[in-house]
């Protein structure tokens, strides 16, 4: 390939990579459908190998998160529907996922969906460090923890004492 041809090839490759990233980033979380894997920070990297295979790196929120298998399948389907022929999804563990990676926009989407977003920074949590959690419905801070665990590994169950509604809290992790 000439030098010019090679540069054009690189540009085409980069634009395909970006498109693949955007497509993968739009895959929704099956358990919190209001968030995409891009919002969650679960999508870590997308590369295109020399044989055209799209390599996607994702990282689990919790080690045993059962949504990982669904993510993998949904990413493959989404990319293939966009015309990418071969897709390989890898699970990477490092650096470990943290709720600090949730964007402000993602937190707002969670709140609007009725799930209280993680409070504060993951690093400040201590043995009995209880979080101060605002009710996603009425905004009151007069809330109490019902259980350390909720409907999925990433959530706990709380209740609002002001509006009496129970709600899910996305654990600070």
């Amino acid at each position, binding site marked *: 390939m000439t030098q010019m041809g090679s540069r054009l090839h690189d540009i085409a490759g980069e634009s395909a990579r970006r498109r693949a990233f955007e497509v993968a980033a739009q895959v929704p979380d099956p358990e919190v459908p209001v968030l995409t894997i891009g919002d969650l920070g679960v999508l870590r990297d997308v590369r295109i190998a020399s044989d055209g295979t799209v390599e996607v790196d994702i990282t689990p929120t919790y*080690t*045993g998160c*059962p949504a990982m298998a669904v993510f993998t399948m949904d990413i493959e389907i989404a990319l293939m529907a966009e015309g990418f022929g071969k897709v390989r999804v890898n699970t990477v*563990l*490092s650096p470990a*996922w943290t709720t600090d990676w949730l964007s402000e926009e993602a937190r707002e989407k969670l709140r609007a969906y009725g799930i209280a977003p993680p409070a504060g920074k993951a690093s400040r949590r201590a*043995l009995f460090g209880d979080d101060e959690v605002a009710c996603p419905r009425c905004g009151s801070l007069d809330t109490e923890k019902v*259980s350390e665990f909720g409907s999925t*590994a990433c959530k706990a169950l709380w209740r609002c004492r002001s509006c009496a509604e129970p709600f899910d809290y996305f*654990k600070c992790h």
Partner: protein
Amino acid sequence: MTTTDQTADLFAYTLRLADDAAILGQRLGEWCGHAPTLEEDIGLANVALDHIGQARALYTYAGEVEGEGRDEDQLCFLRHERQFNNCLLVEQPNGDFAQTILRQFFFSAFMLPLWRELKGSKDATLAAIAAKAEKEAAYHVRHSAEWTIRLGDGTTESHERAQAAVDQLWPYTGELFEIDGVVERLVAAGIAVDPASLRDEWHATLREVLDEATLRLPPDGWFQTGGRSGRHSESFGHLLSQMQYMQRAWPGHKW
């Protein structure tokens, strides 16, 4: 030391961590649909899921280290009783809710500092698994410590049961701190964590929580041993027969 020796040690060490996680995950899974309250049913299943997730990552890595083509399913579901090297604590039957909680508390209070130290391992994969598992262990300590206090400092009945659980499980905690050639060589190589270095912190965590729970910490005495060399409790075979049924009935099947 030759590379082959270190590979064998790394395989053995990773497999022990995997077995601890898998067996405790299996035990906790037995509570599914039977826990005292719906919230705790979900809670114990969630803790089980964390352990099973850790086990999957560790078994997969152990298989890569071994290099003989064994995957997570083969290592978890096709080894025999004497080939499992989990500590005896994690295989103890669930008993009542107090026994399940105290078993979790004793184990998680040990694993939390272990994972924290293992994050600095020269083995990049173990370090990466440890970084995830540490956060999960912190949550397990918090959950089991809160219940330990609630049960110990609760009614006469719950106090008695919690104390009985402490006394019954105590002889199985000494094994957590055992060190053999595998651990010794890997500690020297900067790969494994010396469990003896975690003892003071573990003891302090137990003392803090058990004091608040008005529970008595038994004196160090005779400790049971054997799990790390494949000698298990009577109930272990029953656990394996249930855990391994699917893979033995339909060899090679995948979800």
